[in-house]
């Protein structure tokens, strides 16, 4: 419950400030938003209640309607068909909203050693970056970071969770030098 309220507040704050206050948006850690989503499962978040998500130029629209993440098979960094479709949407949105920069976070599930998973997460993030660049986005707008297995979204030790954790997430922010 506590988490839910917190999540609601964060989302609310984002919605209000997203288009007006770039600094504020930066500070309101987008990673945190994802984490909250993970804790409460999307069921708790009524998408229709969040006006921002319906605004095609909002970050909420990006993360929720287009989809900010793509998933991977075990120990691979090959984009799936579904992943490519999501990325096509992301590429389109980023092309339209050209003042946004993107950081691609690569993640791995817990079935692996820490170092290897860090490297694997980097491969996944890079696969996404290369795909977006191949769709015409400027390479300079996209950075990658790998969290390896340090930031799981789902916490169970089963394939259902692992599948959600093997992911690359595109985090968008207003560029400082755009």
């Amino acid at each position, binding site marked *: 419950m506590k988490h839910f309220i917190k999540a609601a507040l964060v989302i609310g704050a984002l919605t209000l400030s997203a288009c007006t206050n770039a600094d504020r948006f930066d500070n309101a850690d987008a990673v945190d938003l994802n*984490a909250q989503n*993970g*804790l409460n499962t999307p069921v708790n978040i009524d998408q229709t209640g969040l006006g921002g998500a319906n605004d095609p130029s909002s970050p909420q629209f990006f993360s929720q309607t287009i989809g900010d993440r793509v998933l991977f098979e075990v120990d691979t*960094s090959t984009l799936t068909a579904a992943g490519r479709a999501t990325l096509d949407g992301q590429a389109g949105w980023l092309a339209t909203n050209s003042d946004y920069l993107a950081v691609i976070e690569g993640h791995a599930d*817990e*079935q*692996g*050693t*820490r*170092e*290897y998973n*860090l*490297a*694997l997460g*980097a*491969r996944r*993030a*890079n*696969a996404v*970056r*290369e795909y977006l660049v191949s769709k015409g986005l400027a390479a300079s707008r996209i*950075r*990658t*970071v*790998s*969290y390896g297995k*340090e*930031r*799981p*979204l*789902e*916490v*169970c*030790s089963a394939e259902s969770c692992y599948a959600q954790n093997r992911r690359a997430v595109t985090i968008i922010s207003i560029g400082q030098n755009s």
Partner: protein
Amino acid sequence: MMTKLMTAIAAMMIALVSVTAAQAQEPLRLTLRDGVIEALPFAIPNFQAEVAGSEQMAADISRVIAEDLNGTGLFRQIQSSAFISTPAGFGSPIEFADWRAINAQALVTGAVAVNGSQVTVKFRLYDVFSGAEMGEGLQFAGTTDGWRRMSHKVADVVYSRITGEAGYFDSRIVYVAETGPKDDRAKRLAIMDYDGANVQYLTDSSAIVLAPRFSATGDRILYTSYDSGFPRINVLDVANPQGRQQLTTAPGDMAFSPRFSLDGRQVIYSLINGGNTDIYRTDLATGQNTRLTNTPAIETAPSFNPDGSQIVFESDRSGTQQLYVMSANGGEPQRISFGNGRYGTPVWSPRGDLIAFTKQESGRFHIGVMRTDGTEERLLTSSFLDEGPTWAPNGRVIMFGRETQGENGTTALFSVDITGRNLRRVSTPQGGSDPSWGPLQR
């Protein structure tokens, strides 16, 4: 004096007699191969308080020495309630028969004197069944707040005299202290005594920190931090942890998995560029960077051998994670792991004879050791998730991190003897991972 002379004469006579006897008949020649492996029972009567007011300190020091020895699994303390007699004083003659009767094979006696903030610890070690002292008595002096270290030093000497190899008790561990739920772990660097005492934190939890590594002298620590938003290598001075610096690596997106060379002048690490992870070396004095591997595969977790001439690392160039050894200057590596499953995080032992590693097979994780050519692989542990071995300074014990399964999974540090015996959890205030065992302190 007289007694000793007589003893010597008697001994010589007996020796003469035996030589004569031996000439008459060939000695019997036998080969002993089958023995036992068990904890050696030892007795450590509470150290004597030589100065009034030293009683508590004497008891504490005796207890820590006993815990050190017990904790190895090689020794087993005989409880004082079984003692037949205790030495009247530190210098009193030892009634060996009393100790033989309770099967004590080693006996440690000692005395403690506290004077203000100074404490003096004296001890002697006896081989009960030979009825002789092992080595000479020793005395340590220091300040009272260093009493644990003095206890560890006594235990190190006892360990070393009985086993013939250096101890590891007076050493420290740096590790990642973990708190919070699995999807929001707070991680910070912590340093503690080898036995989990005296935990101190070196960083706060504002950024993820990973895999700290001691320098050979134990005064500096390399680790990976996300404080810049990206994984980068930081170095900190143990004496002044606030003054940490980011290591200037070769240009790249992310850097991690660092280790010092033995002389502390070079750092080897993994660098990620364009999604590809390779191993690099940076000379700290000159800033010169050398790329040591160059493949599209993941090359990481490099570790020097003790003389710094070779590096063992993991690579998935064959399709799965395997272990390879290459020259410290790079060049064609030789694969050393050929078993089923995946091998990662190799660490060269300080003795140079073994490599410890993490192995994944059939959904289980293991800590194992193999010779440096990959032979004589031996798995020491098995669990849902064991990883990141580090060697005790004497190369006899391995510490590693273990994580339990499920949404409430927790992390903890464990240690195990290289024979696979004596698996123990190391007590830490919270969860722990990525231990790095420092050298014996001076």
